[in-house]
Each structure stands twice: as structure tokens, then as C-alpha cells.
């Protein structure tokens, strides 16, 4: 029995060492950890070494890879700060809370968050703010009281007008069009559709809107609705789909149907899902805000807050590197600008 005791304790020792060494492997290097804290003291006066921590909705999402790793990191490097990206692996309402807490403990100077939920991270954010951290939200806002600034991707008017202008250009400003939306009660979709209708009525009298169909942001449903649209409206000349799921499904249908090239399709989509259809001529152009510009702007906004050049009140102005000068609007909102239009000429520059 004595013998086995020794065996057991040896085994336990091995297990403990293995675990500890695993944890040690996990830590990249201890210097960065102790330096990364940036000791929560110190005023935000000098921006060199400003730690900006990005917290996306979830890691491994191409959209946030573009906004954070591409745009955000570029900006942080330009002003010689320290860039970090942490976040949950799935987008759950309170998944970001523990990461915000950790950032508060580390005393990072600035947080750039795309909120999974407008309310859930609030108490954690407030705690970080009371410890002196500046908080910028982008893409998805939190309640206005728990952030300093919100970077909005594009105004609803801008999004609606861009799409109407594109379809008008592609069908020669006259003919029948239809809209393929997401869910019938989606707030942002309906706001955009109302604005499109107004814009069509005011500036494009020869374009007739046959109707709006709903694909519920489901690939197969959107595909079927596209087929039904083309059957019900033989004279249809164009489709607008202001949802990334819808536009991809509609493009896939058009690509294989006889309507390819005859019926124009535009809307909001991502370059990676639409690349094939733009190259083979199914789709001429579509739009979306540029996430990497969004992250870039958010990082500069965070820096301006840390430096104290702006406080987040309406009318403050700051310069965001190569993007130029921006002004803070109502409710601490900064507008990125009009959506980017993607076509054959520029689609290969984007990867998200």
C-alpha cells in the first residue's frame, strides 16, 4: 500500500504540473501582462501607450475581424497606442460582461465595444467608466448613459438613398421594382423601406414599387420569395434587398435563372458573399458601410476622449487619421458617413 501511495502522489504531482504548465503555455509572456496593465494611475495626458481594448460581439466573426483587427488596429498603431481585442466566442446578452470587468481591473484607458445587448453590459461599463476608462460603442449601441460616444455606421437616410440611387441607375430610372426584406417587424428594415418609398415618390416618378416581400433573414425562404417575385411580376426590372441574407439568396436564384442580367439586384451585402455574383455579372453593385473604417474611426474617437480633446458633447470635433474631421452629433453620436458602394472595380480590396 505504501508503494501505491507514492505512485498516487507522484501522479497527482504530474497532473498539477501539467495543468500549471498548460496555464503557463497559455500566457504569451509575462512582461506584456505586467506592462499591459498600464497601472490605473497616471492621467490620460500623453496618448502614447494608450491601451485601447476592442470587445466585439463575438470573436471569429469576419465583420468584426475587419472592424477591429484591420481598421481598429491600424488606427491604434498610427497613434502608437496598445491594441487589444478580447471577447466572448458566442454572442450572448451578458457574454461581454466579464471581459469589461477584466478591462476595468486592468485599468485600460479606452474600451471600444459593439454591444451584444443594449442593457446587459451597462453596469459593468459604468463601473469601468467610474474607474476612468473611456467607452466608445460602435455598430450596436448601448443605452446612451453608459458610454461616452457611439459611432454609427450610416444614417438611415444615407442607407435608403444609396440603394434607391443604385437601382435607379441600373434600370434606367423607370420600370417596376420590388423589395426583399428580412422579417416583417424588423425595426431597422422598416425604417429604411419607409425612407426608400419616400425617396422613390419624390425623385423617381417613373419607378413603380410592386411590393415588399419578407424572407425572414432565412436563406431558403428568401430564395423562394425571389422566385415567386419573378413569377408574379413578369415585368420586374429590379430588386432591392436591404439585408445581407436576402441579397445573397436573391443573387443565387438570379444566377441560375433566365432572369440573370435582365433583372437588376442591389441592396446591403458583404463583399465575401457577393464577390462571385459581382464578377459573373449577376449583380452590378451593392452597398454596405465599411466595417474597417468604422473600427478606425472608433479607435480615433477613443483616443480623442482619452486625450481630453473631446468630452462627447454635441459639437465637439476631432480628426480621425486619414478619414478626416468628424463632429459629434446629438446624444454623443458620430456618423461614419454614407455607405460604401461595392462593384467590380473595388470588391477585391475587401475581405469580410
Amino acid at each position, binding site marked *: 500500500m505504501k508503494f501505491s501511495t507514492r505512485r*498516487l502522489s507522484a*501522479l497527482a504531482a504530474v497532473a498539477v504540473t501539467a495543468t*500549471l504548465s498548460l496555464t503557463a503555455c497559455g500566457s504569451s509572456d509575462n512582461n506584456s501582462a505586467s506592462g499591459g496593465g498600464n497601472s490605473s494611475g497616471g492621467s490620460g495626458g500623453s496618448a502614447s501607450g494608450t491601451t485601447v481594448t476592442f470587445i466585439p460581439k463575438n470573436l471569429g466573426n469576419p465583420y468584426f475581424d475587419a472592424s477591429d483587427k484591420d481598421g481598429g488596429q491600424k488606427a491604434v498603431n498610427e497613434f502608437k497606442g496598445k491594441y487589444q481585442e478580447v471577447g466572448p466566442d458566442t454572442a*450572448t446578452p451578458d457574454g461581454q460582461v466579464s471581459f469589461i470587468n477584466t478591462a476595468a481591473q486592468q485599468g485600460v484607458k479606452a474600451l471600444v465595444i459593439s454591444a451584444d445587448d*443594449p442593457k446587459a453590459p451597462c453596469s459593468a461599463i459604468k463601473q469601468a467608466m467610474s474607474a476612468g476608462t473611456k467607452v466608445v460603442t460602435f455598430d450596436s449601441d448601448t443605452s446612451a448613459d453608459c458610454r461616452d460616444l457611439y459611432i454609427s455606421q450610416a444614417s438611415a437616410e444615407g442607407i435608403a438613398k444609396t440603394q434607391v440611387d443604385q437601382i435607379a441607375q441600373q434600370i434606367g430610372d423607370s420600370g417596376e421594382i420590388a423589395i426583399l426584406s428580412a422579417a416583417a417587424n424588423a425595426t431597422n428594415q422598416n425604417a429604411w423601406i419607409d425612407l426608400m418609398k419616400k425617396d422613390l415618390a419624390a425623385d423617381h416618378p417613373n419607378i413603380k414599387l410592386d411590393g415588399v416581400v419578407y424572407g425572414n433573414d432565412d436563406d431558403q425562404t428568401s430564395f423562394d420569395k425571389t422566385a415567386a417575385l419573378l413569377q408574379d411580376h413578369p415585368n420586374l426590372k429590379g430588386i432591392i434587398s436591404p439585408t445581407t441574407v436576402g441579397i445573397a439568396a436573391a443573387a443565387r436564384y438570379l444566377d441560375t435563372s433566365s432572369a440573370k442580367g435582365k433583372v437588376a439586384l442591389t441592396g446591403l451585402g458583404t463583399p465575401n458573399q457577393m464577390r462571385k455574383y459581382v464578377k459573373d455579372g449577376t449583380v452590378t453593385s451593392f452597398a454596405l458601410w465599411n466595417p474597417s473604417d468604422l473600427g478606425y474611426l472608433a479607435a480615433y474617437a477613443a483616443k480623442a476622449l482619452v486625450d481630453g480633446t473631446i468630452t462627447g458633447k454635441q459639437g465637439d470635433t476631432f480628426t480621425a487619421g486619414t478619414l478626416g474631421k468628424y463632429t459629434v452629433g446629438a446624444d454623443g453620436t458620430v456618423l461614419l458617413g454614407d455607405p460604401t458602394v461595392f462593384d467590380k472595380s473595388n470588391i477585391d480590396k475587401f475581405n469580410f
Partner: protein
Amino acid sequence: MTSATVGDTAPTTRTYPAYSRPLWRRVLLTREFAIIALLVLVFAWAAGNVANFNSPLTIYFLGLDNAEIMLIALPMALVIITGEIDLSVASVVGLSSVMVGILHQDAGLSIPLAGLIAILVGVVAGALNGFLVAYVGLPSLAVTIGTQALFRGLAVGLLGTTAKTDFPTKWTNLAQQHIGNTRYPVIVIPILVLLVIFVWLLHFSSFGRGVFEIGLNDEAAHFSGVNVARTKFILFILTAAVSAAAGIYITLRTGNARGDNATGDELKVIAAVLLGGVSIFGGRGALHGVVAGVLLIGVIQSAMRLENQTVNVINIVIGALLVLSVMSTSVLAWLSKQSARRTGLGTLRRRQAVASSSSTTER
């Protein structure tokens, strides 16, 4: 404990020198203790080496972030010791969260009343699980996979994609307050109360003996007078009720009631319970190990986040740790078998002698 006193009349004083181990070994050479030791080691290492870990905030956030896991792990440990499993806990959390939101904001009930009704809804949900497992005799894995989807569907269906967010600050602040001037959040108090209750239930009551008995052999348990079905039924109800209570806490802490709250938490709970030395086959486990398991996962996550590790690396470490700890049981069992064989037939003979003599005295 050196000489065998075979033939003692009182069975309580009878000893088995051939294969009972000294007290220190029975206490120290257990999986529970190994996890506690590991917890102390990791904590001490982190406090010394991880920047910002050694601050009062760490403990505070550890309490806040792991409270719901800790709460649900207590009854879950009992369920797993009986050899069953409950995968619907996180869905009950979501359902309870939605109930609190709707009852408070649409029906205008006060938070305590809304919370009470949410717990009752949890009890009903648990009764459904318990009835199907205990009285219909269906396998709990299949049943709770089904009810996991069912309760989650109900929760999301009741609110759709919206969220209820206007809770009185009095209550939302309470969920985050410190106890007086200490570093511990208020939620620690209900956790301790429940811990005392469950420790008594599992380790100091006849009900708890029955729980272990069922896990070891439910036939035998049945014939030795344990009401197997009722015990399982009660445990599923307890688990769902505690999950519902955790749902109220999450709702107040995050200030939002959403159908997808706590998605995926059932696996976090089960991982912590198994890490704490509870056997997935049932029949073995102790609550001090479970508490240490929850804390160990929490401390590792906290330390690694402060080291700026990505969530994937953290998951890899915790996953590896869990696999190692589950493996260690089988390795230990194999080793003790080997050593038993090596110590030879002498022990075996002695054991048989003791066994036969004790069986004669037992009449």
C-alpha cells in the same frame, strides 16, 4: 487502527484494518482535495504573477460572474450523483428571466412577487422533467435535451427578440452590492445559505444516503427502502427551482430579461460539477469538491483574461483540465487495482477472513 477486533458486538466500532486507510489518507487522497489543492495553487500563483489579479475587485467579480453557475451546480451535483443529468437548467434560467420581465413590467407585479411566480414556473418545469424521468422511466439525457429546447423555445417565444429592461434600480443595485465594506457581493449570502442546505441534504440526511445509494445501484436502493422515483422527482424540482432563482439574479444583475439569457450555461455547470469530483456514472461526489470546481474554473478564467488570453485558449485549458481530472479517476482506479494485485493474496485472504467473520457476527 492496527489490530482487528473481530467479533465486536456493536457494528459501529468494527474496523477493517486490512483495507481501511488511515484518516489522513482518506481525507487527503481524494479528487475533491486534489481540486481544492489545485485551486489554492492556481490562486496563489495568479496572485503573485498576474498583474491586477491581487485586488479586491477580483474576488468581487469572481462572485458576480460565477454566482449562477455556483447556485445551479449544487442541486446538479445531487442529480448527477443519482446517475441522472439535467440539461434543461439554462433554459429554465431563460424562462424565469422572461417571466420576471413580463410579470414585473406588463402585469405590474413587484419584483419579489414576480420572482416568486418565476420560481413556481421553475418548479412546474422541474416537475415535468422529474415526472418523465422518475415516474415514466425515460432516460434523463433524452428528456432534458427535449425540455431544454422546449423551455428555451417558450422563453424566446414569450418575448420574441425584444427585451424587458426597465427594472427598479433598488433591485438592480442590490444584485451588485457589496456586503458592507467587504469585497464580497451580496449574492454570496444566498449561495452560502443554499450550500448549507444542500450539504445537510446530501451528507447529513437519510435523503442524501438514498441519493448515493441510487447512484450506486437503484435496484438495491429500492429494496433497501429508498423511494427511488420520489427522490429523483424531488431532485429535478429542486434543480429547476434553483435555476429559476438564478434566472432572477441574472435578470437583476444585467438589468435585462431576455429569452436567450444564460444560453449554454448548462454545460458550464456540468463541467464544474464533474471537475469537482462527482462521477458522471453516479454514486460518488461531495459538495466541497463541487464548490472548488466552480471556483477553480472561475479563477483560471479570471487570471487568463487578465493575461489577455483569448477565450479560445481559456476554453482549451479548462477543457484539458476537465479531461485530465476525469481521466485521473480511471487511472487511480487502475493503479489501486494493480497495487491490490501486487500486495498479493495475503490481503485478499485477510479480507475474506474479516468478511466471513463479520457476516457471522452480524446476525
